[in-house]
């Protein structure tokens, strides 16, 4: 029997077209860690016609809402999100860059108040572009390298 590298899932969410190497950061942004009650499959460095190489994330038995997943557009601007029901793609959409990134990025300014022990989440204004840019709502510092700034 041929063993599939990545098996189809019955129910859940498949995030496809993640830039190669970003899958673990995608999980981090989505808050999917060892405490998650479902099976998570991560495929890294998969050949892709469109992208050369890509990553894929599959989360079983959990339907992620589009708004929830849009956050990953910060590092995976062309990712597509497929909601799977009974092995079929029931819904499909492409992520959209959010206007704000709350609690996702760490401000690179060591003197920013959000880097002190204050009871606030970081908050960035996001601007579209190649790559997108994010400016701290507190200190105005612009994040040059968004993937490196993921909390």
């Amino acid at each position: 029997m041929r063993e599939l590298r990545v098996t189809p899932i019955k129910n859940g969410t498949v995030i496809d077209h993640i830039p190669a190497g970003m899958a673990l950061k995608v999980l981090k942004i989505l808050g999917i860690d060892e405490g998650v009650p479902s099976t998570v499959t991560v495929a890294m460095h998969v050949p892709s016609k469109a992208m050369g190489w890509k990553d894929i994330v599959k989360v079983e038995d959990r339907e992620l809402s589009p708004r929830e997943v849009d956050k990953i557009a910060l590092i995976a601007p062309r990712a597509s999100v497929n909601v799977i029901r009974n092995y079929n793609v029931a819904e499909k959409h492409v992520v959209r860059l959010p206007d704000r990134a709350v609690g996702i990025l760490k401000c690179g300014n060591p003197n920013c108040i959000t880097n002190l022990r204050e009871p606030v989440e970081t908050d960035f204004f996001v601007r579209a572009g190649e790559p997108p840019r994010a400016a701290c709502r507190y200190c105005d510092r612009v994040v040059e390298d968004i993937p490196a700034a993921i909390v």
Partner: protein
Amino acid sequence: MASWKGRDILSIREFSRGDIETVLKYARKMAPIARGEKSSQSLDGKILATLFFEPSTRTRLSFESAMIRLGGQVLGFSSVEGTSVQKGETLADTVRMVEGYADVIVLRHPHEGAARLAAEFTERPVINAGDGAGQHPTQTLQDLYTIWDEKGKIEGQSIALIGDLRYGRTVHSIATALAAFGASLTFVSPPGLEMPWEIVEELKAAGTPLSMTHRLEDVVPTADVMYVTRIQKERFPDPQEYERVAGSYRVDLPLLREAKKDLIILHPLPRVTEIDPAVDRTPYAKYFRQAFNAVPVRMALLEMVLGVGG
């Protein structure tokens, strides 16, 4: 801006040109009270909390003077020594505690974004009196007021910003605000201390008439306003290099021989050697007037955010 009552004063960028004009006109009405020529009790019964997490005597005293001149009371601290901040209290907690004791909060803090954070934890209006290398909007308003009051208008003035344009906090805010008012700008700085390129690009994109030079003498004959800032010794690894650079950016009487008759010279103070004390006696010197203008501007803001007077 529909209503000023309860408004936080956090960044000059949140002010439209119309907002700034409102403040300038309001401040002019306050000037006789600030000078002690007229009296007012408009803020009788109101309390201002001055929370200074780092010392800034001039800023604190001018806020206190403004509040007291308007019949209000002041409480607060001028450094964190002996406060619960030293015990590790968060800014968020300090602000929520102070909210119970005062009607308006003025905050000075060494960390950027502190005023915005504070404003999120209190219903009381928060006025940013400087947060780290970030914003200091009341200083900018005071500078704009001085130019407007001395010159009658800001639009069309030829304004030279001189000194450390790279790290100087006030100079970034004032450049952006002056550009919004249609002034033409010249940046004069030693090599390595030029205005950050993001700001230059932003101003150019907005169509601001703009030039740059390393030579102070280039701007003297054409400037309507010279805004001089301090060149900080700690920016130079070599003390001799500092002496050389600081010496070439010194405003003195020989330099001003070519100046326009109605030139005004401003400086956010404190100065070190950038302006020769001999210049103080010339009609150009407006920096002490500028320091006084902190009071009417802050009076105007206090009345406006407390929703009294008008």
